[in-house]
């Protein structure tokens, strides 16, 4: 099974679970369990780089998260939840199109009427860059509440396992693969550098 197929299988199972559990409206979703083999097949991104002043000046855009003593399964749950919240789930999809994210179900459903109008208005006023900024703020706030620390990264390394979303949405396969890589980092070895402000 190649990497993409394996990811498809992993996320396919996850999506099924999401659909079934969404009916309950529960906010206490069971944590999806990954096998060691599944986790091992997810590429660990490179995090080592020689930081320059220019890198440090952009740490408000390029960073990763890590929490000590956190399992891959727990980190995947946390990152998925924050990704769904940060994305503004229903803003990016139609009312009859299911959101492809494991933990999306716990936050309910809906194609925003008032919200969509407001979001569209906000987009018209502030544009895609403001949306990208809100996503960064939301990931920081959400994972900060969960006790994750934030570490700076060079743009070059960051781009290999992160995505930005403004008015559009990254391709599902790409974003799912990157979320799994972010999970490996978040639950992986303690970073060498000092943490930033949450």
């Amino acid at each position, binding site marked *: 099974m190649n990497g993409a197929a394996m990811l498809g299988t992993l996320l396919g199972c996850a999506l099924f679970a999401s659909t079934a559990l969404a009916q309950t409206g529960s906010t206490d979703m069971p944590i999806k369990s990954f096998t060691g083999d599944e986790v091992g097949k997810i590429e660990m991104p490179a995090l080592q780089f020689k930081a320059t002043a220019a890198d440090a000046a952009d740490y408000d855009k390029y960073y990763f998260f890590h929490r000590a003593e956190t399992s891959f399964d727990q980190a995947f749950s946390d990152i998925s939840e924050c990704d769904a919240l940060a994305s503004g789930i229903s803003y990016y999809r139609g009312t009859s199109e299911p959101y492809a994210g494991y933990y999306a179900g716990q936050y309910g*459903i809906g194609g925003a009427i008032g919200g969509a109008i407001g979001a569209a*208005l906000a987009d018209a006023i502030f544009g895609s860059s403001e949306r990208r900024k809100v996503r960064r703020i939301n990931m920081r706030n959400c994972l900060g509440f*969960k006790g994750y620390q934030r570490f700076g990264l060079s743009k070059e390394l960051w781009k290999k396992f992160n995505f930005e979303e403004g008015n559009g949405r990254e391709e599902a396969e790409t974003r799912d693969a990157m979320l799994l890589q972010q999970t490996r980092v978040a639950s992986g070895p303690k970073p060498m550098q000092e943490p930033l402000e949450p």
Partner: protein
Amino acid sequence: MKVQLALFAAAVALSVSVQAKEKAYVFVETKPVKDAKIVKLEPTKAYIMLRTPNAMPVHFIKLPSAEDQVAYDKLSDEAFVKAQKDYAKALKRYKIDLATAKKVKGTKLPKEPVEPTRETFQYQSFGQVANFTVGAFNRFYSEKGDSGYLQAVTPGKYRIFGQVDPLLGMGVCYCMGSVTFDVEAGKITDLGTMGADIASAGQAEKGDSSSPAAAAYTMALTPASETTPVDPRIASFPRVKANFKAAGKSANYMGIAISRIPPIAGVIAYQRDRILDLKATAPGGSQ
């Protein structure tokens, strides 16, 4: 015979007219009480009072009563039927477009529509159809650094969604923790006072464009107490302190900045992102 036909036609027309004019179910009706010298509140209506340091919007979503749920389910069913009809039209159009595209070499093929099913069709959440916003306009009173909103609203149970006006699409949602409260007819439900959250107040570092300290900053809510000042114009109307209760997480369906209501003593606290219902765990509280 002509008379009978005319009567029948009139009856049919009346029936159609009645059906067409069948009143849509209203989940929430709301109206701000304006700042006037003499204020007359109606004993059949329910009101909420909220004090803020300045003009700002606060959005509330209703939690469904049994009657609301029936009406909501009906709306959802109707939306599903419409989605199916739309799909049938889209499929017809798709087949025509596909046949046309296949005739011309190099033409991009149209995307096949996806049939909505009961499993995949998702109607907007209840909070999206049953909500109201207080502010930013129509303050009941305003002084320097102190203002208040008094607003009539349909009785029921509500959640504070966040500091946002949905029509503007900017603000902060309390998606990661908030409170609910009940509103009853014939009373002013006093929600207390919003003010700076001293615990998290602070400037973002210079150049930190994604700092939650600024963009996702939330106001602290201090529930009403015996010493909370009451505007003399409404002092004679029955007033109750809001019975706040910790509420879980909710969807960020406006796609705005996310945060949570700051802890409220005796009501809500947090352990990392876990929401602690302090009333449920307090001695004598329900488990």
